[in-house]
């Protein structure tokens, strides 16, 4: 899975995603800046995919398993609580006619 040489494709994806991120976030109403923070927090917990690989892959050393286990735990806490809190906050935003 890992790569030992610089791959320009990745830079491509990064630049596109960064531009897109700026455009998207700039359009978020200030009204929602708090839920936005917790949402992006939850999304960043996608590092769990790396943690899963490390923990579960064939020939993982005990050390790797331990580190991976903690990482999976941390990421799960973040993603579960991140999405749930965001939703809890957003549920509270009501237009005039309730």
């Amino acid at each position, binding site marked *: *899975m*890992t*790569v*030992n040489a*610089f791959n320009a494709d990745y830079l491509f994806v*990064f630049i596109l*995603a960064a531009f*897109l*991120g700026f455009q*998207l*976030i700039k*359009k*978020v109403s*200030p*009204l*929602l*800046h*708090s*839920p*936005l*923070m*917790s949402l*992006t*927090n939850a*999304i*960043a917990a996608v*590092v*769990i*995919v*790396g943690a*899963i*690989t*490390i*923990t*579960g*892959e*064939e020939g993982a050393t005990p*050390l*790797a*398993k331990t*580190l*991976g*286990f*903690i*990482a*999976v*735990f*941390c*990421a799960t*806490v*973040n993603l*579960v*609580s991140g999405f*749930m*809190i965001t*939703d809890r906050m*957003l549920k*509270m*935003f009501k237009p005039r006619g*309730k």
Partner: protein
Amino acid sequence: MGVFVPFAAIAASALFILSLMWMSHPSTARRGVRAGEIGMVIAIIGALVQHEVVNYDLIIIAMIAGAAAGIPMALLMPMTAIPQRTAISHAFGALAVGLIGAAEYYKHAHPEYAGGFIMWVLMFEMLLGFLTCTASVVAFAKLQELMGSRPVSFPGQRIFNGAVALATVVIGATLAIDPTQTWLFPAFVALALLFGILLVIPIGGADMPTVIALLNSYAGLAASAMGFALGNKLLIVAGALDGASGFILALVMCKAMNRSFANVMFGGFGKVIAGVAGGKDDRVVRSASAEEAAMQLENASSVVIIPGYGMAVAQAQHKVSELYQALTKKGVDVKFAIHPVAGRMPGHMNVLLAEANVPYEQLVDLDDINPELPQADVAVIIGANDTVNPSARDDPNSAIAGMPIIEADRAKSVFVIKRSMNAGFAGIDNPIYYNANTQMLFGDAKDMVGSIAKELSGGGSGLH
């Protein structure tokens, strides 16, 4: 399955993008959360079905334990603790990134990776991950008041910090060039963790929101770096989105405080300024009672409420909502003026008022409300201070000169609800309190607003 994994990455990325897109407006925001959740589920399934992954027990246990910790956290957290929660979740996220980096490092601690691209990326990723982790813990501790919120300084601080930073980078580079020196690795991690602490302790507690947003952006960058190292484009995309978000929020805050990043990080704001307001106590302060305020509000045709940090501290949002309802029932036009940095994090006031059922159309931005204020009969400032301080506009020597403010002083008359004549976060005097059209309502925001609302709804039980 060989095809499922790349498609899972593409689908998850697209869903994360849609998620942020829908976040732009309250009417679609919850759909955005759904999209994010589905994206996450797809990503996780994609990771689980990879053929490299053979061992599921630990993963399942960790996920169950994580959910068991995360669900109650999400359900029980009071809305006033949102800033702290954000800080601690950055710590968790950054720790995960750092640990994955560490595991990857040990996997690649072989001569053939010496000086390779992956090593440099891993070191960069871990540096960001570990420092963000401890920095976020410190930020959390300051916000939760587990430690003093004053900036911590000691002699030779800058030199010491510089030395730690240099040592971290040098050891990191050494490891990248010769990854077999595993004995150096714990030192690298320890230094990175230490550096995170050093970075944040000299910053005042009230600057934590900006710091948190910046750390958010670091965490995102670290996740992207991990994507480079693992060859995982989904991580690159998610990290870039997260990084952009933190960066823009930090920018918004800095702009709304008219300060630079450097000033926030190294300015030691809130360190020296205290008791500036001392001298000129010959100025007259007019104070009023809840009854008087209620009467004047009742007879107004338009009222602008300006909440600030004090409303959050006092948890007065529900009483404020009662006040809003009572006034609306009497035909008064009530709007809320929301300064971008009112409170202690971006969007703080909005969340609290939304929690208390104030319709979001009534929450008006700085730029939109200022032209309306001169026509407003009454401005009610509830626990706000710096964000309504006219010296930011009038006095070029003020510590907050140039910071955009809500021009409450332009309203026909002004009520200020706070407990004392004490200063706000910036620690400076506020001339608005001495204006001829200003009346102070001294008291805790929750009690005072509650009394006014009670007066308005008949002076009786206050229950309605």
